[in-house]
């Protein structure tokens, strides 16, 4: 018998809001977080936009000394973690910290700091501070959260970039299944940096204006940043301490396309397999799925492959399922995309509101599903999927369900 795992806390930092209420209001209203880049000098680039986090004031959260040592990625992660921890009422309840762990997904991590170091080092301008190199490991944010909160349970970091933090939720789920933890902090954090921005630009995968998932005019992603942290908790443990239960993580799938280093498998066969693996693991039939939070990067190939994959699983019903592409608002947050989108999926289940895909104007005959264009819709949702796909075909699908007592 598998243990039931529920979500008891949520925290988000994003381009459209630095806490859950603001984030949720923004995506329900269809607010676009895209703006001019300020975290690094974008003047040499043709494209100068990203879904950058704004109104984020480190000094509201950290001491001067901490700010010197924490990367932007660490700061987002810690702030989102604190919100999730509080919202799960874990600041009040006494828990066994030997049985609480952290699994985050990482993308570029704190490379922004490492870039600062090596820019100075290679250009010989001045002696850079070695503390910038604390971010060299992708595990740094994970460790900082665990150390700060004194969590002595299992700890690791997944590193599949664009699907990392969805994978981390799967791994955290397993830590609870293994009996190693009562609760796990999971999700991810990531910050903008020049390496990933220029890398995606060099692959011609970035849209110069806005992120337009599934729209015929789409040219690619808008890079985003932020953090999405969830508290996953074993149901009995959550009930015993009377924790707020937002929804249940019913299962997940992780598969490989085994196709190409950057292009998705074009027929949607990889997407089909990961959704089927997830549904199978969750014990949910395709008929029960009410909404899908799409990977929806707005790259020409991804959106076609994802659409085809969804049709392969759901057949005729595919057109009836409202799909959200929230990357149109929060950008593609790489290592935190899955965490932020999982938070949105949980909020969808909880509030009965499906956030829209914005900038949707010109339908693409190859993307012919219901993408919830431009306006959110009210809908009672019992089961929701969240898709995350990564370079190299590292695909993840999460299945969340409304928490129903006794199901």
């Amino acid at each position, binding site marked *: 018998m598998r243990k039931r795992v529920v979500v008891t806390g949520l925290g988000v930092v994003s381009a459209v809001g630095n806490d859950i209420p603001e984030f949720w209001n923004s995506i329900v209203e269809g607010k676009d977080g895209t703006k001019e880049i300020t975290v690094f000098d974008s003047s040499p680039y043709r494209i100068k936009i990203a879904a950058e986090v704004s109104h984020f004031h480190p000094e509201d959260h950290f001491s001067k000394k901490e700010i010197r040592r924490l990367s932007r990625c660490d700061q987002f992660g810690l702030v989102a973690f604190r919100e999730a921890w509080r919202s799960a009422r874990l600041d009040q309840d006494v828990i066994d910290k030997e049985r609480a762990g952290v699994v985050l997904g990482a993308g570029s991590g704190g490379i922004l700091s490492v870039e600062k170091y090596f820019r100075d080092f*290679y250009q010989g301008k001045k002696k850079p501070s*070695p503390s910038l190199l604390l971010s060299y490991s992708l595990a740094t944010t994970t460790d900082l959260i665990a150390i700060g909160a004194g969590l002595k349970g299992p700890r690791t970091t997944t590193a599949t970039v664009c699907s990392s933090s969805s994978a981390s939720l799967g791994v955290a789920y397993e830590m609870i299944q293994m009996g190693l933890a009562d609760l796990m902090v999971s999700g991810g954090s990531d910050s903008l940096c020049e390496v990933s921005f220029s890398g995606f630009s060099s692959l011609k995968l970035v849209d110069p204006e806005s992120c337009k998932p599934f729209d015929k005019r789409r040219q690619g992603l808008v890079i985003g940043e932020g953090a999405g942290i969830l508290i996953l908790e074993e149901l009995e443990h959550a009930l015993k301490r009377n924790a707020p239960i937002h929804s249940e993580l019913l299962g997940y799938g992780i598969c490989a396309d085994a196709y190409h280093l950057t292009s998705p498998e074009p027929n949607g066969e990889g997407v089909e397999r990961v959704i089927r693996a997830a549904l199978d693991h969750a014990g949910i039939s395709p008929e029960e799925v009410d909404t899908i939070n799409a990977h929806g990067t707005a790259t020409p190939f991804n959106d076609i492959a994802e659409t085809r994959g969804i049709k392969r699983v759901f057949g005729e019903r595919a057109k009836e399922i409202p799909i959200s592409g929230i990357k149109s608002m929060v950008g593609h947050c790489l290592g935190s995309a899955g965490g932020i989108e999982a938070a949105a999926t949980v909020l969808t289940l909880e509030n009965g509101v499906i956030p829209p895909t914005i900038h949707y104007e010109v339908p693409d005959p190859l993307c012919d599903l219901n993408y919830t264009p431009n306006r959110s819709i009210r809908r009672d949702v019992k089961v929701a999927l969240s898709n995350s796909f990564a370079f190299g075909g590292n695909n993840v699908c999460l299945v969340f369900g409304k928490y129903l007592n006794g199901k």
Partner: protein
Amino acid sequence: MMNRRIVITGLGIISSIGVGKEEFWENCLQGISGIKPIRRFDVSSYRSQLGAQLPEIDFKAFIKPANLRRMDRIGKIVVSAVKLALDDSGLDLKNEDSNRMGISIGTGLGSSDTVDQFFRSLLKDGPTGAAPLLFQTAVPNAIASHCSIEYGIKGVNLTFSHKETSTEMALAFAYHLLKEGRADVILAGGGDELSEPLYHVYSMLGALSPRGGKGLEGMRPFDQERNGIVLGEGSGILVLETLEHAKKRGARIYAEVAGIGLSGSTDGLLRYDLKGDSIAKAMSLATSEPQTVDHISAAANSTIDLDRAETLAIKKVFRERAREISISGLKSMIGEFDGSGGIRACGVALSIYHGMIPPTVGTENLDPECDLDYTLHQMKKREIRSALLNGCSNGGSNISLWFRRY
């Protein structure tokens, strides 16, 4: 269903002391160290000069030419280890369901060299210097993607990157998924390469021997004069398989994976578990029969904190039996690197299979606080009922895997 047993049926090793399990094992038993002056890049400006580097390898012997072109060096290293492991296992992929096969890889900084090349070219030439071909291999999961593409493996595919426990985690996750019945076979392990930027970072963070500039440079776990780590590189891949599946195809079984334990310590971002409690917890969770543990492949990386904590942890778990356990520190031969757990796990499988325990080398005078049997200098013949592999990362992830004779 929970009684599914998981076994090791194939080993692939690319190490500084040997390519392939035969060469590796022979050198390992003889206590031959791979640590030498670094030649692949210029270290003249550093206080440290040593590393355990791979020999020149002809990757064409391991990888399809069309795929080889797309891989960076670490990709080639790990895919070669996968090839060796698959060959060793006798698996015929034509007979396998590719959806029931998976890949679980751990790497600390897999593509650090590629990221560095990309960044330097960006600094030099601005946006036009950003090279798409470098970028696509710079992501940490490129390694696992290379493996899946090379062999058309379509099941579970995941990459872990958590400092020195990256590969131990990859193995633990693979074990659990096999136990849950989510795959029949998983290629698990990982690796890292010794690159110039990585060497620079470790040096600037003050991790490399001779730490503080005092004493002789070298890897000497448990020695009074130890003074930090020497970096290494390489890859170790294990074919993990359900016993049922292995039996059906008549596979040779090296050992059984029988348990895993994970724990976290919170002593600081660059600190290991200082009191050994967390390492002890990981070992206790991993093994349900501590009285059968005859061998421990220690995380021992020649840092005072970790050597002492691990020793303390072994005493906490095994009490009066602690001195009867044959401990080895393989990092004394292959160096320390985040993805070392795969090679060390192969070592444990070979130890159990052959009844031989490789030595810890380089150590002359034991630290009085490290008073267990570390199998110094000389290998030992010993029947092993069961063994533990410890992985400990700075920052505080501690993982222990329990292997049993099949």
